[in-house]
Every structure is written in C-alpha cells, then in structure tokens.
C-alpha cells in the first residue's frame, strides 16, 4: 500500500513535467486552449491523488506510539 501511495504522489509530478504532452492549443474548452484547462484540471487530480495517498498511508502505517528511549541513547 505504501508503494501505491508513492505512485499516487509521483503521478502528478511526472504528468506535469512531461510538458510536450500538453503544450497544445487544441482541443479548446469554452475558449480555453488545452494547455490551460488541462493544467487547471490537474489541480483537482493532484489534490485527489494526495488525499488518496494520505488515506493509504494512514491505513498502511497506523501510528504506533513511540516508546521513550532511555536517556543514554538520546544524548549520544
């Protein structure tokens, strides 16, 4: 599940770094060139991916309370 979360986080980065895939004028949407509406769409996709990753990480690695390490270890 942690791997899936990692992939979810990587997807927006890879998609947006791949500039040649979206640097086009057509198809336009409501007058907006593809380049612009596509990137605005990614705001929502990226947000959804990050939220999904958040939920996955919470389930995959439930928080384990930390045990107080002894003082020697802490003050090496």
């Amino acid at each position, binding site marked *: 599940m942690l791997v899936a979360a990692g992939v979810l986080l990587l997807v927006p980065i890879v998609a*947006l770094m791949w500039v040649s895939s979206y640097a086009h004028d057509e198809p336009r949407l409501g007058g907006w060139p593809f*380049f*612009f509406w596509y990137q605005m769409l990614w*705001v929502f996709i990226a*947000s959804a991916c*990050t939220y999904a990753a*958040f939920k996955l990480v919470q389930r995959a690695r439930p*928080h384990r309370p930390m045990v*107080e390490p002894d003082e020697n270890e*802490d003050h090496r």
Partner: protein
Amino acid sequence: MSALAAASAPNTGVNVVALAVLIVLFLAVTVMGFLATRWRQAASMESLDEWGLGGRGFGTWVTWFLLGGDLYTAYTFIAVPAAMFALGSVSGFFAVPYTIVVYPIIFVFMSRLWSVSHRHGYVTAADFVRGRYGSRGLSLAVAVTGILATMPYIALQLVGIEAVLEVIGLGGNSALARDLPLFIAFAVLAAYTYSSGLRAPALIAFVKDALIYLVIIVAVIYLPTKYGGWGHIFDAAQTKMAKPSPATGKPGAFIPAPTQYWAYGTLALGSALALFMYPHSVTAVLSSKSRTTIRRNAAILPAYSFVLGLLALLGWVAIAAGTKPIGLNGQPNAQLVIPQLFEDSFPSWFAGIAFAAVAIGALVPAAIMSIAAANLFTRNIYREWLRPNATVAQEAKVGKLISLLVKFVALIFVLTMDKQNAINFQLLGGIWILQTLPSVVFGLYTRWFHRWALLAGWAVAMVYGTVKAYNVSSPTVPHFAGSLAPMELIGQLGYIAFTAFVLNVIVAVVLTPVLRALKSPEGDDRTVMADYFVDAGDPRVKPLPELTTDQH
C-alpha cells in the same frame, strides 16, 4: 510609447473611495494583529516556541490559512499576472504546475521534518542540520542562506504594496508622499509582529484569504464577460505574444514552444523544491499541531493553486481589456497591470477591496518571513556562535528585536535602492535557497552523505548559480535579467536554480566517498530512526518547556 502614455490618463488624482476602503480594512487588520496575543493565549510569550511558532498548536484550518497566506504572497499576485501580461506563459503560468507538484513533495518531506523537529525542539531547518550532522559550519551555511534568501522576499512584499498605492494615485514627485504610507504600514506591521509573534499573521491570514478569494472569484466571473469572453481573451493574448516584446526584443510565449519545454518544466520543479526550503515555509509547517495536519493540508492546499491559475490569466484579461499599466512617473510598468485592471473595471469601492486584498496579502507573508529570519538568526547564529548559554526568554527577546531589524532593512532596501535590485536579489534568493535542499531533505532520510561533501556541494552550487544569473542579460537589463540560462549538456534554456542543484548533488555524491576514505570526522547524529515518525502525543513531543531546555 508616447502614444501609449497619452492614451491612458486614469492615474491622475487620488482614488478617494478606494483609498478609504483600503484604510478601513487596514485598520481592522491592525486591531486584529494586536489582539492576536490573546488568541490561544499562552502562559508566557517569552520563548521562540510561543512567539516564533505560535505555540506549535495550529490545527488543519489555521494551518491551511497560514500556509496559504504565507506561500501565495502579494508579490505573487502582482508578479505572476505581470509576467503573463509582459512575457507570456513560460514566465507566468509555470506557477500552476509549480504549485501543484509542490504538494506531493510537502506530503513526503515536510511531515518527516515536523516529526524530528518536534522530537528535538528544532525551530529551524538549520537546527535540524546541526542535530543530524553535528556540524556547526553546515548549519551556519543553511541559516545564512535562509536569511539571505528571505530578505529580498520581504522587500518584494513592499513592492506589492507600492504597486497598489501607485495605482490609487498616492505618491508623485514628493519622496515623502510616496514613501510615507509604506513607512506607516510597515511600522504597524513591525509593532504587532513584535508583540504577537506568529499568532498575528495566522489570524490576519483569515481576512487576507477571504478577501483574495472574493476578489478573484468576482474578477474571474465578471471580467471575461465584460471583455468579450475567454475565447477572445486568449486570442488577444496570442496576438500580443506573437509580437516582439519591447522589454526583451523577443516574442512572448502563448503556449511553450518545443525549445521551451525544459524551461517550463525546470522552472516548475525547481521552484517547487525551493519553496519548502524557504524559512517562512518551514516556520509555518512547524507551527502546526501534528504530522497529520501537514499531510491533510497537502491535499487541500491546491485550492490556492487553482486561484493562482485564474489570477495568472487575469494578466491576459488585461491584454484583452487594453489595460495600460503606466506608473506615476509616466513609464510603463507591467507590475501595475493587475491593480490598474481592477481600477479600470470595477467600481471604486470594490477596487478598494481588491487593493486591500493585495496590501494585506503583503503583510501576512512579510510578518512570517521576518519571524522566520529572526528564528534562524537567534537559534543558529546568536545561540550557536555568540551566546551558547542563552535562556529561552533571551532567545525570544533577540528574536523579536531581529524581526524588527529585518523589516527595517527591507524597508530601507526598497526606499533607497532601485526596485530592480529587489527583484534581482529575489531571483538569486530562489537559486540560493534550493542549494540547502540536499543538507536538509537528504538528511531526513540518510546519513550517507558526508557533512563536508554537502557543504562543498552547497558552496559550488551557490557560486555557479550566482555567476550564471549575473550573466543573464536582456536589451534593457545588463545583469540578472531572468532566471533561465542554457543548461550544461542539454543546451536548452533551463531554470538556473535547478542546474545548480544538480551540480550540488553531483559534488556531494562524489566527495562523500573521498572524505570517508580520508577518514575525516563524521560528526554526531543526535537523532534516532524513530524520531522521524513521531506524531502529536508521543513522549517529549509535548510538553514544550522540556523540549527547549533539553538539548545543547
């Protein structure tokens, strides 16, 4: 240009209604700033945890407003549409992918930094570097880079306020009339930052963001219908971008051409990596109450990116509207395009609200930045080098004074030097701050890198980036004309900060085995693996006083 100047005469006279609205909102925010001391009142404000990190107790919503108010600054609101207006999408719209890819990065790195920082009472990234590598030199490098990168950023917030005041019509030839409002605004800001610390910008951020959202939503719905619809706006922009710009002599970018893909991508990725190395981002992240708060915020903060995208396009709405951003000195100044568009298109009272949104939008980040710089100075220079036995109360006192000093220097910077200098240094700041990433972020995962190798990588990249930026010229600006330069090996234009960062990592990777072979000292690591995963409620994550006295 003379025909342009003659055609546009809206700048004569003061827009009284807009000015009145601006002043009323500014006063309201000032009162909030001073009252913020009582918000989530602490037993004592005399520690950096309270003054400089707001008690480290901000929940999801406060953090959302605080980070939003912090990262999307007045200068962003002025400069991004101005770049769209003058230069086009490569220099302007990259802000959208930039502020999208930054959040997965925050999700991964910043929650880890939060954990280790709460465990050990770290207030700054340089504190962490000190604890992780046991290296005063590396920690100092990180701290100094942070302070240097932050100063011009504060100065640019003032440039944002100035742009608004100029369009309202305040200023002119008298230096007093031009500078006095700015001076007053900053004196007030300095006073409540001094007394309330991080609580002041956290509270004011609510107002700032509410105003920004209101203005942008109204602008984006109303203006396109007024100026012929989105199709017409994009066509007008396409026509303008095809012609050579008077500033650079080259055509602008409507949609990035194949030769500009690297520039667009590296600008977005490089800026995203740099953003969370800035001290003010670290301060806002560490003020949140739990690790989960940060991760949840990484999913909801992109709302601001959407607004920023719309705002960027307002720069093109201004092209369709025929906005003429002419300064009070009669010279065209692209920085004025958004305030001018608002003044031309909206009734005065709403223009006043829009101007207040920008002005208040400058106060929030300026306050957080000055606090962040003060935290760095206090922890990593004052306590580390000047007075190792400083008490918690002394730290708070020095922090408060430094926050005043930092703002004062920024003010002098803006009032005495050419505006272009502030922009140059801000550009350099972005290049510099990214060079602290290997020490901080790699350090969150591994101690493999040798501390001196990291320091060497930092030094090489700082010099490389500075020289590269110095050599960028345009017909109107001899040096520091932009943040793009040909990349080594690849040959295409790319973001200098990114190229320097790659060089930085290469140096660190190559030198680490060399230094290890020479058996140079590794330094103590005060952190343990489990520190990187703690969340609120774990031992020693609270209570706070114990934290700050615990480590030396």
